[in-house]
């Protein structure tokens, strides 16, 4: 077997607590399917037959009882439950399942919605015998207005600096702005080997990684690493240019020597050589290929540890970890699957105006004289007469009574919007009830613990 797929679905959704306080993030409906369905569908489409799913007990219960999911996902899912307290990072989770891992792994996050041709990432991993291959995408601007958001959009605090070589495939440098206090510093050894480096900031990390089995073994030895993205990937990228991994003998500067002492002990596990190392070396020696030209070193500069990245410029790639991303994903995710926009079991009266870009879930009831445009309606929702729904996301089991006008809002499951309510850019929590004839014009956010009308009014300033 070549690759084992691991789906990380235990994340808490810390950046969109408004949506996730009641239902776990992997089960949030996007286009009327649970969020977790999208990466599973991606894996199924490319031909995986088995996936190890790391998640909480709650999610497992919800997924196994949902009859629709059983029909949709034909792969064999190996559920691994971990505690919900949130102390376990992604790398800790990998350490937890170390016994199950027999070959190289493909780690996917549950909030990834993409239509990438996965073979591009895996081909980099195979062809160059890489230790790490990951997927990144050019970030798209979110154009939809987000309900309930206060203040200006956060701009630069969480930028990632990614350095790639001239071909755009080899990953040379990766750091988050938060870790760079004094400024960006690049080691001389990197500059000597790759004099031309492109540093990109507008990239979204898709959290899709191909890792060699040796890395998982390395993680079991080094218990200090707890997050793949935050710690493991930058570590591997740095290790590519560490002195002990290279066979070249260059003059070190003092900094490198210190680094060497620190890193030396942990290096050997990552470089477990295959059984026929001599043959591979012979083939490489006899081959007339080199990945760079202009200096006197051999292919890959003799380095055995290599990290590659595939940067998508076209196509969908979203990580649904913020409210804005969630709304954007709801708009675009339906393009990924060819199900009819209106579920056959939905009862829609004839005098209803429905736009072609709306989705109606199963067992909905939509009454006369309603108008639904650019919206997603979840299953078992009841919409009464004379309701106007525009640009909104309505989850399951919602009851919207007559004469309501809902615009640009997100209404969570089992909420009740009473007669004549007028909501613009609001976010209604789970099981909430909006009083009749209420008007919420700017961006109220209705939290669960406010029993009746405790409306926080935030004035959204466009900058």
């Amino acid at each position, binding site marked *: *077997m*070549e*690759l*084992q*797929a691991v789906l990380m679905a235990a994340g808490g959704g810390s950046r969109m607590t408004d949506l996730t306080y009641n239902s776990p993030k992997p089960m949030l409906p996007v286009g009327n399917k649970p969020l977790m369905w999208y990466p599973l569908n991606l894996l199924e489409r*490319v*031909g*995986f*037959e088995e996936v190890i799913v790391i998640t909480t007990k709650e999610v497992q219960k919800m997924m196994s009882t949902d009859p629709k999911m059983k029909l949709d996902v034909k792969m064999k899912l190996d559920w691994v439950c971990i505690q919900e307290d949130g102390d376990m990072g992604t790398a800790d989770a990998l350490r937890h399942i170390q016994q199950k891992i027999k070959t190289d792994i*493909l780690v996917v996050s549950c909030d990834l919605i993409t239509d990438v*041709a*996965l*073979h591009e990432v*895996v*081909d980099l991993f*195979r*062809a*160059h*015998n890489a230790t790490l291959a990951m997927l990144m995408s050019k970030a798209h601007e979110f154009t939809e207005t987000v309900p309930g958001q206060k203040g200006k959009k956060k701009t630069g605090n969480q930028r990632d600096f990614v350095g790639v070589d001239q071909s755009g495939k080899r990953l040379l440098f990766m750091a988050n702005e938060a870790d760079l206090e004094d400024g960006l510093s690049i080691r001389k050894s990197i500059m000597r080997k790759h004099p031309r480096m492109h540093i990109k900031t507008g990239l979204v990390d898709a959290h899709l990684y191909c890792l060699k089995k040796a890395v998982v073994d390395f993680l079991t030895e080094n218990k200090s690493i707890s997050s793949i993205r935050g710690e493991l990937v930058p570590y591997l990228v740095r290790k590519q240019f560490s002195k002990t991994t290279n066979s070249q003998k260059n003059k070190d500067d003092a900094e490198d020597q210190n680094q060497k002492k620190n890193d030396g002990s942990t290096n050997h596990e990552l470089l477990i050589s295959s059984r*026929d190392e001599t*043959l*591979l070396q*012979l*083939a*490489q*020696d*006899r*081959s*007339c*290929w*080199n990945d760079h*030209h202009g200096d*006197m070193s051999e292919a890959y500069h003799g380095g055995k540890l290599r990290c590659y990245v595939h940067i998508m410029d076209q196509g969908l790639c979203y990580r649904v970890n913020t409210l804005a991303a969630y709304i954007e994903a709801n708009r675009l995710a339906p393009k990924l699957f060819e199900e009819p926009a209106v579920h056959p079991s939905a009862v829609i009266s004839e005098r209803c105006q429905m736009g072609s870009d709306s989705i109606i879930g199963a067992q909905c009831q939509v009454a006369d004289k309603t108008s639904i445009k650019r919206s997603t309606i979840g299953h078992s929702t009841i919409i009464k007469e004379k309701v106007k729904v525009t640009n909104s996301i309505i989850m399951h089991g919602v009851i919207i009574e007559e004469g309501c006008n809902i615009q640009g809002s997100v209404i969570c499951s089992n909420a009740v919007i009473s007669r004549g309510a007028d909501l613009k850019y609001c976010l209604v929590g789970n099981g909430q009830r909006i009083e009749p004839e209420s008007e919420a014009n700017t961006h109220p956010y209705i939290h669960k613990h406010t029993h009746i009308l405790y409306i926080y009014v935030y004035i959204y300033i466009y900058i």
Partner: protein
Amino acid sequence: MADSGVTDGPNKKDEIERVKSEGKDLTKEEKQRLRKEKKQQKKNKEKKDDKASQESEKEKKSATSAAPASQPPTQLPAQKAPSAVPAPAPVPVPASEAPAPADKPAKSKAELKAERRARQEAERASKQGKKGEVGQQAPQGKSKAPPSELQPVVKRLPEHIQVDNPDVLKKLAKKLERQQTPGYNAATKIPLRSDYGYKVSLFSHLHQYSRKAPLTQQLSIPSTVIHPAIVQLGLQYSQGIVAGSNARSVALLHAFKQVIRDYTTPPNEELSRDLVNKLKPYISFLNQCRPLSASMGNAIKYIKKEISNIPSQCKEEEAKSKLLNCIDCYINEKIVLAAKAIAKYSIEKISDGDVILVYGCSSLVNHILCEAFEKSRKFRVIVVDSRPRLEGREALRRLVQRGISCTYVLISAVSYILPEVSKVFLGAHALLANGYVMSRVGTSQIALVAKAFNVPVLVCCETYKFCDRVQTDSFVSNELDDPDDLIVTRKGKTQLEDWHQVDSLGLLNLVYDVTPPDFVDLVITDLGMIPCTSVPVVLRVKNVDQ
């Protein structure tokens, strides 16, 4: 498979072959007819015993006349006519009855010709079904075949040089389908890689693939149909990461070692037969990624032979370790030790003060030069390079790293630099049975110019690259690389960006060419230094050994 087809030889040779086969056909048909007649005669025994005896005499005559027809190799139609005449005579019983001998051939000739034609068509159809022969030969000769199809001279052409024939492509697609291991559904067959871009008409019979459309696009990602080591190898071939005859063979054998290690014999099967069947789809896959080289073909033949020679009572573990050992020995003998032997012979040919010209990046030539340098010969090297591969840069790097003083020119400057050169060392991709050297495109140019300047040309080649094929031109069998490699961007402008839109423009990126033996002065192999024309002798000796 790629190597075994007999391609264009001298015309006479093929005529002789054809006549012989047709002569055999005729006698076979004769024999069949005789058998049928004997059956008929047994039925009509009580009626005409005399006629039977008469016919048997005539059959003997016709048999004897047909036999000499097959022997002399020339005068094809002339031979056919007399053999055709006595042949109809014994056939149908009623026809040979009453009329005079003069009338007999006239009447029966017409009838029997028609009958014979029908029979021959039936036999031809059955033969075609079995052998899959493309070229058809009307046994009655070219002169008597107005309604029949065009008759190419060659008997059988390999598939990889018949890309413009849709029937052959269909056959290939079916073959790939059939080659999946049993137990998998049709969706997991080996994908067929599609051609890319406009092909220059002279080379439209060859495949032309694009590097941006790898075969892995059509495979499932955790590859279950094809062993992951083979998928990795195929990717490395198609992207050019493993390039060069020796490197490709070593990588192939390395991948086969992994396949053998992971192999388990299914129940009720024998390792010697099942493993060979398992390897077939892998080889087709690798062929789709990049056409197999002659050295790879020979390595595959060797492995298949070794696998089939495993005795059936051998246990699986033993058999596997034996095979792994064989592979290691093969690599050691044919590549590593051969390189040492060739270096030893070549050093005798390199004298102090030499200026040696090399072309492209041949692993063997680089090895020789490095060894010679270590043995303290004083020489300098001129590296000639050509677009689009620019492999000379890699050769230059390796030589300069050792301390050899080098000059670098492009192939357009070869006639400028040649007056300085004292010897030319060339590497080879394969040595063909008629003494021609198949090597990177541009080699024949260098050999030609060197000949014009009276500079000795030495070709270095291991014996495992010798191949049974015969070729006199570079058109029949070659490899077309990705045409987009020829596109270059200078100062931000890419002139050929939209070459697809221009209907009359085709980009041709050839990989190999053949050099005639007249331009090559010496071939240095691990068996010694031989002239180019001794290659068939070496092949014969090798076959006898095996």
